[in-house]
């Protein structure tokens, strides 16, 4: 049951980079495209997803011995939907203005396929600790991609960053990056802008990975100065 450090590192790396849900698995695109019009929206929904994924992976891995294989999918959906309902009510009660903004996208976390994908592919087969960690890391992987996407779209469409931050921390306000006179670029905040920006991020992600692989393949040209850690077991 004990989790060694290599395994831990593998979990973190898979979630944040190697199997990133937004850039590599391309799962859970519904919120990515819909809510990433501003950085605050994107990160808020991303963090809500982290909470759901962490708890759903925890609960599912803890209960996995009692969930018959034949009914695991309805059971997973039930667990995820219940957790999302609880989160939805909590948002409504304690962060009401943010709730109005994220609106329908909180209940839609239920059908975000990355949540069910991790329940099925990871939490149903692994221990409580690993599963919770996997949920958090997969969720955080989504958060940084969503946050970057939201920041880019907001910057291009409005010339601001952090608009709407006052809904979370009253008193703070948006930063005008390009000054008051920035004419704005509407396309970036419309749905096509989400596709274009995500495409750029995926291209960048692939370019970095290709570059790294090429470096690794030609060790004679650039010998590594420190011995690299062995790769974690393939999954």
């Amino acid at each position: 049951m004990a989790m060694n450090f290599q395994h831990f590192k593998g979990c973190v790396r898979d979630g944040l980079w190697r199997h990133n849900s937004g850039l590599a698995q391309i799962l859970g695109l519904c919120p990515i495209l819909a809510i990433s019009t501003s950085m605050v929206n994107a990160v808020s929904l991303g963090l809500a997803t982290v909470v759901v994924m962490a708890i759903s992976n925890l609960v599912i891995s803890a209960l996995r011995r009692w969930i018959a294989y034949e009914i695991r999918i309805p059971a997973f959906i039930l667990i995820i939907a219940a957790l999302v309902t609880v989160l939805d009510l909590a948002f409504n009660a304690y962060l009401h203005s943010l709730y109005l903004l994220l609106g329908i996208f909180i209940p839609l976390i239920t059908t975000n396929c990355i949540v069910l994908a991790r329940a099925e592919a990871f939490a149903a087969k692994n221990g409580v600790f690993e599963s919770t960690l996997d949920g958090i890391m997969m969720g955080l992987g989504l958060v940084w991609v969503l946050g970057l996407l939201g920041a880019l779209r907001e910057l291009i469409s409005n010339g601001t960053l952090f608009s709407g931050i006052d809904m979370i921390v009253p008193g703070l306000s948006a930063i005008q990056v390009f000054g008051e006179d920035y004419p704005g670029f509407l396309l970036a905040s419309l749905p096509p802008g989400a596709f274009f920006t995500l495409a750029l991020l995926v291209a960048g992600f692939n370019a970095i990975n290709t570059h790294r692989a090429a470096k690794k393949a030609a060790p004679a040209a650039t010998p590594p100065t420190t011995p690299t850690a062995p790769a974690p077991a393939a999954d």
Partner: protein
Amino acid sequence: MKLLDALPPAWRKAVSCACGLVAFTLVFTALMAFTYEMTRERIDAAKDEQQMRLIDEVLPRERYDNTLLADAVSAPGNTANVGRIWRARRGADAVALVFEAFADDGYGGRIELIVGIGDDGRVTGVRVGAHHETPGLGDYIEPAKDRRHQNKPWIAQFEGVDANLPKARWTVKKDGGDFDYRAGATVSPRAVTVAVGRGVLWVNKHRAALFEAPTDAKLNDEARTE
């Protein structure tokens, strides 16, 4: 158990799986019901607070001393597309009527509006609630989105307008009305202006009846209890 053993294997499996699912459903439904009960009061309070935030921009709280949200009437199916109407009073005096108006012909569908009419027969203010107008084009009807005119947002022009203005003048200047619009997006301001005018004329006409109606009364299109 004897009953189960008598069943064919497939049925036995089905029954045990179903029992498992029922158990899960019970536990997680209980969790949801419990959370619902725990958050219900907070959610109602948050909704009222949100409603009051817009109303405060239309009518300052210092001007009345009753619990505005509790002092409401409505006129279901009225021809002016007006929702709830709240009566602001100070002691026994009528101060203002604040009401919801809806514009169903916005560029992105329905636009929700909050409008106030003071006892001097003038509009105290208009604010936009929920709407789906195009960001960066039609959404300047919402003062926070009217970035270039933070000092005098578009919607501020309704303040102080005579509530008896003839119906034909309650539209944008392009259509021969009294109200400005910004080049590039006329649909949203037209929808808002027409809906505000329609609501203001109806509410102002039935002003006395609306103030006298008992709380939570359902009125007809002539503002009388049926």
